[in-house]
């Protein structure tokens, strides 16, 4: 029935666009008005909701902090956000709505690369700067010169995972189990394979699944038969949780590891005790003793009933702060000048480390490796580029 809805999506998108066009004349111009409008599209519900919610809470906190200290350029920020329900097709519609009807000066979003890739061409065509907090697939910013990100990219993450597999896990033979439906997963698998093989490692088995699958036993049985030293699962937490649980149940004891798609409390809820001997790389650890990080952790806990921020929350926060910094430096929200100011971001002190945007509009910053011990995420090491 999902598929039927998917078939309907283009029609719905068309209708929404038409409606947006109709209301355009009546809508107040956000940029010229009393407030600065910033739009966000996020996976607030659905498969990647844990990520979307975290990231959204971080962004929301940043906007509230900015407004509490007088806003930007003497104006308050109006934060307009929409939920894409983690489903394909929605982000494009939302981006159109935010740009044409709400007239936002910039877009923030998304956690999932696939959905950032849907909105990016629309932001680019309308010349509205878009900053993705945590989409790591390189293609996202390749869309055009108005698209930025404040996180590291998958080639960097793939390389550090390859190093990690070889040095820390001492793995020679690795199996890769990736999600064909997620550009993030396919990309990360590829960026892992190249440096790993170049460094003398061997990929013993390569299996695929489709995000949302529930049964992975057939592929895992095939992987088990190859006796890999470690298994790379570059997917998102809902699938990863089931994969790890089913792998352990089939008697696979090899360490399993992945990227920042793993980080959500739901992973532990789904897989529970099966998560011993698993590792993932991510952007941020709340255990970091840096005063800026501890200040953010305290503010986040105070705002959200004692909840500890994760990497997505930290990146969501940083995405809004990088944008605010650029608006201040530009002195205007005019799109061309704002774009140039974002592109010139250099050494911005964010909670996920110093953020510098390179010529490809990507951030270069350190990563951390996290492991799971007794049902808790534990900081293992920091890797610098």
């Amino acid at each position, binding site marked *: 029935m999902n598929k039927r809805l998917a078939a309907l999506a283009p029609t719905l998108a068309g209708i929404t666009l038409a409606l947006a066009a109709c209301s355009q004349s009546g809508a107040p111009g956000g940029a010229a008005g009393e407030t600065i409008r910033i739009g966000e599209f996020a996976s607030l519900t*659905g498969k990647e909701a844990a990520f979307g919610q975290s990231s959204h809470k971080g962004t929301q906190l940043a906007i509230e902090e900015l407004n509490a200290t007088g806003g930007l350029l003497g104006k308050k920020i109006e934060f307009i956000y929409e939920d894409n329900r*983690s489903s394909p097709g929605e982000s494009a519609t939302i981006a159109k709505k935010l740009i044409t009807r709400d007239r936002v000066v910039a877009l923030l979003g998304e956690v999932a690369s696939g959905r950032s890739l849907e909105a990016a061409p629309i932001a680019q065509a309308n010349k509205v700067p878009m900053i993705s907090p945590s989409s790591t697939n390189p293609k996202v910013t390749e869309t055009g010169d108005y698209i930025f990100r404040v996180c590291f990219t998958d080639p960097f993450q793939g390389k550090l995972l390859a190093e990690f597999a070889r040095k820390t896990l001492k793995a020679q033979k690795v199996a890769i189990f990736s999600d064909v439906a997620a550009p993030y997963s396919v990309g990360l698998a590829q960026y892992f394979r190249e440096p790993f093989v170049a460094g003398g490692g061997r990929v013993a088995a390569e299996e695929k699944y489709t995000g949302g699958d*529930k*049964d992975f036993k057939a*592929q895992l049985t*095939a992987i088990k*038969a190859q006796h890999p030293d470690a298994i790379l699962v570059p997917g998102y937490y809902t699938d990863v949780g089931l994969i790890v649980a089913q792998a352990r149940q089939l*008697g696979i004891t090899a360490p399993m590891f992945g990227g920042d798609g793993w980080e959500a409390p739901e992973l532990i809820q789904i897989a529970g005790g099966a998560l011993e001997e698993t590792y993932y790389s991510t952007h941020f650890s709340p255990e970091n003793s840096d005063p800026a990080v501890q200040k953010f952790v305290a503010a986040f806990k105070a705002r959200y009933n004692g909840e500890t921020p994760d990497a997505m929350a930290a990146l969501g926060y940083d995405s809004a702060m990088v944008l605010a910094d650029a608006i201040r430096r530009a002195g205007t929200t005019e799109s061309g000048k704002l774009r140039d100011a974002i592109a010139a971001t250099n050494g911005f002190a964010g909670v996920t480390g110093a953020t510098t945007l390179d010529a490809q509009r990507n951030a270069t910053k350190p990563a951390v490796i996290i492991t799971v011990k007794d049902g808790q995420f534990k900081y293992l090491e920091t890797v610098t580029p």
Partner: protein
Amino acid sequence: MTELLQQLVNGLSLGAIYALIALGYTMVYGVLRFINFAHSDVFMVGAFAGYYLGRELPSETFGGGLLALAGAMVACAALGVLIEKLAYRPLRGRSTLSVLITAIGVSLLLQNLGQRLFGANPRSFPQLFPRHDFRFDGLVISSAQLAVFVITLVLMFALRWIVMKTRIGMAMRALSFNPVAASLVGVSNDFVISCTFALGSALAGAGGILYALNYPSIDPLMGTLPGLKAFVAAVLGGIGNIPGAAAGGLLLGLIETVVVALGGSTYRDAVAFGVLILILLLRPGGLLGRVQTEKV
């Protein structure tokens, strides 16, 4: 060799779940000659009923698990009867197409109501039954896999017994043969149809729980894909035919597992639906069904 046996176990346990859902499809089709597309969403409601009951009941005990299973089956049976009363009964006697489209509508309604009530986020399903993994020389069979297999077989035979040996079963068969003649000889059509929906939906409820025990992450859209696969399984075995639905489910599970084991994991769903097209082209009655020619 162990790998082959393990894949066989994987395939059979996946197939047993398809079979269980397919039994519900076949049950309703056999009596009313229409595909209840809302079946896969009743299946989802079953899993959620188990989730909420499971939180109240002691976990990992046989008593608590069976109670949750029974509770979910009752809840789904009630939902099935309600759906039939509100959505399908007013359309009885109209063209099958109207009923089919209504079924799709009910399915979408349940999915979206589910998203509204339960939230769209996946939840982790509690361990209702005590867990044990049986290991034989590298081969692993979990208690959940075994439970699916046994419960599916038991329910299949129970269903067959009800349809073939009880008075209500006889009434169902009579209704299926000729509804007008059945009501002339004193069969209460409304009651029999309600019973059919109650039975079919209870099966979906059991299916939802068993599925969630094997794959403990549930969400309001979880029924869609297994539902469609089970539909394929029902057609594969011959829709309307009870042992056919079970056989079709097991066969489909095995086919999917073989496809994945041979390295074609991305083709898994394509092959499953390819099977549907092939069977409709080559043997429209299904493997165990009879081809019926419609009188014009």
